[in-house]
């Protein structure tokens, strides 16, 4: 099922990388984006097409933090926990976001798959520390209050 959604893009990638192994990461990216997470089916398919043992595909997926077998929320909140952000109060930001986004713990998703909160390493936004990203959007110079307001806006979006 999940293969169908990715088939076309996969073929493009296979063509671009005749050297098969190199196609693995780009394919995983496509699958993750189209299906929201990776599946057993995708692993088997890619292993076969790229002539890789399945265990190799599994190990690659689990090695990188941006790939996952668990479906993530519609909004992935990445909160930077590295030192420059920490010095500027990222601990309080995380606490505020966890509370506001309906009490899910870090690295978990809300019941309705609305939010996933991920404490992450430096995002290259240290000039606007403390910083976070929600999907591809950047938020910086946060205070706990600002962070709460941002999350509140995302929450309302559902009700529309």
């Amino acid at each position, binding site marked *: 099922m999940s293969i169908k959604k990715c088939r076309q893009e996969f073929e493009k990638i296979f063509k671009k990388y005749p050297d098969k192994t190199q196609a693995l*990461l780009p394919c*995983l990216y496509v699958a993750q984006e189209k299906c929201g997470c990776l599946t057993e089916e995708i692993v088997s398919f890619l292993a076969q097409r790229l002539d890789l043992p399945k265990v*190799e595909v599994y190990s690659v997926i689990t090695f*990188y933090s941006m790939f996952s077998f668990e479906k993530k929320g519609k909004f992935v909140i*990445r909160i930077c926990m590295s030192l420059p952000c920490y010095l*500027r109060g990222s601990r309080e930001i995380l606490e505020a976001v966890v509370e506001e986004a309906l009490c899910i713990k870090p690295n978990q998703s809300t019941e309705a798959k609305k939010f996933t909160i991920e404490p992450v390493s*430096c995002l290259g*936004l*240290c*000039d606007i520390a403390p910083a976070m990203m929600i999907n591809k959007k950047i938020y910086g110079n946060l205070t706990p209050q600002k962070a709460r307001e941002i999350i509140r806006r995302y929450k309302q979006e559902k009700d529309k």
Partner: protein
Amino acid sequence: MKIILKNIEKKGYLPDINSYMREGGYKALKNALHMKPEGILSEIKKSKLVGRGGAAFPTGLKWEFTYKTKDFPKYVVCNADEGEPGTFKDRLILEKDPHLLIEAMVICGFTIGAEEGFIYIRGEYFKGYEVLQKAIDEACRHNFLGRNILGSKFSFKISLYKGAGAYVCGEETALLDSLEGKKGQSRVKPPFPTFVGFNNKPTVLNNVETFANIPEIILKGGERFSRIGSSFSPGTKLYCLSGDINNPGIHEIPMNVSLQDLLERYGGGVRGSLKGVLPGGVSSGLLTPRDLDITMDYPGVQKAGSMLGSGAVIVINDKHCMVDLAEKCVEFFDYESCGKCTPCREGTKRAKEILINIAQGKGELGDIALLKELQEIMFDTSRCGLGQAALNAVRSALEKFYDEFEDHILRKKCKFGVCPIGKDI
């Protein structure tokens, strides 16, 4: 004196090819195509440019090694994985002046005899990826990339490759494995990538900022570049100021600037009073207010017992507890360790445990000796720079702020009130 930000800092400058060419972009490539590879190498060696990604290796030498090997095909790889906490300079170049990087990579390909290049960009740089892809397409349309570039016999193409969230992939050999579609775990060196790199072929791998210096060197000559700033490591540096500083941000300054000037004149001064500075991110050792007069070039920072690395200058004021910060640094390395070698995989874990214990008031004096021993072992025996540098910050904190550790251990006290000592946890 601006080399890298000369375009970016102009008002209204856009990251498209017309803006770049209006400022004289791709002239260096045109010149280079009329030079001999040996001539280009000689200019770059004369410039005394060293890598801006962390290891400060002479760029001219790296290119020359690859040029001289007779194994083909060869590759050019740009390290745009920027992951060292406190570093955000490459993002600026990628998003605001992508053609500067592309031009440099084409020149590199022409010099060493490569026909293909990759930009390995970290997965979270969504905007940078888009801007770069657009820029590559533009460069192809103008025949700065593609077949027979500007009527010469030289052909070159560049592809983007996205990382997927792993700090260790910034290490050059881990990056190459990741670029081949595998887990990003470091390889044993030697052989170095200059001889055995991407797909086991000779590869020049440079940081974004390193590449960004190349067009200037071709246009103005290596000799002239070598007279900028510091005579030991010439040129400018993009210093990234972060942490407890009034104006965090990126400053391009010739490398003879002192730490004091960097913080005061450029950074607008410290927020609160200065306690310490990590000049090369969490991988480097702490400097203290006593080091304010050092020169911020590579040898200058090294002489002070630390390293400049990628130029991530993290400023720490006296409101912070060093035990707490040391623990935060180790936590990062524990999380990011690739797990390939025992000293780093186990060492980062144990160091984190020890520091958490101390922060909770359960530490013993013997723990300090243990941490020091761990640091030495990891420094000597870890396979790649991640493990080797993981406890640099801890070691320097122990040396320079010993009394804070003692307070936690003997008096069960955190005078900053940040550690969980005595609190129920």
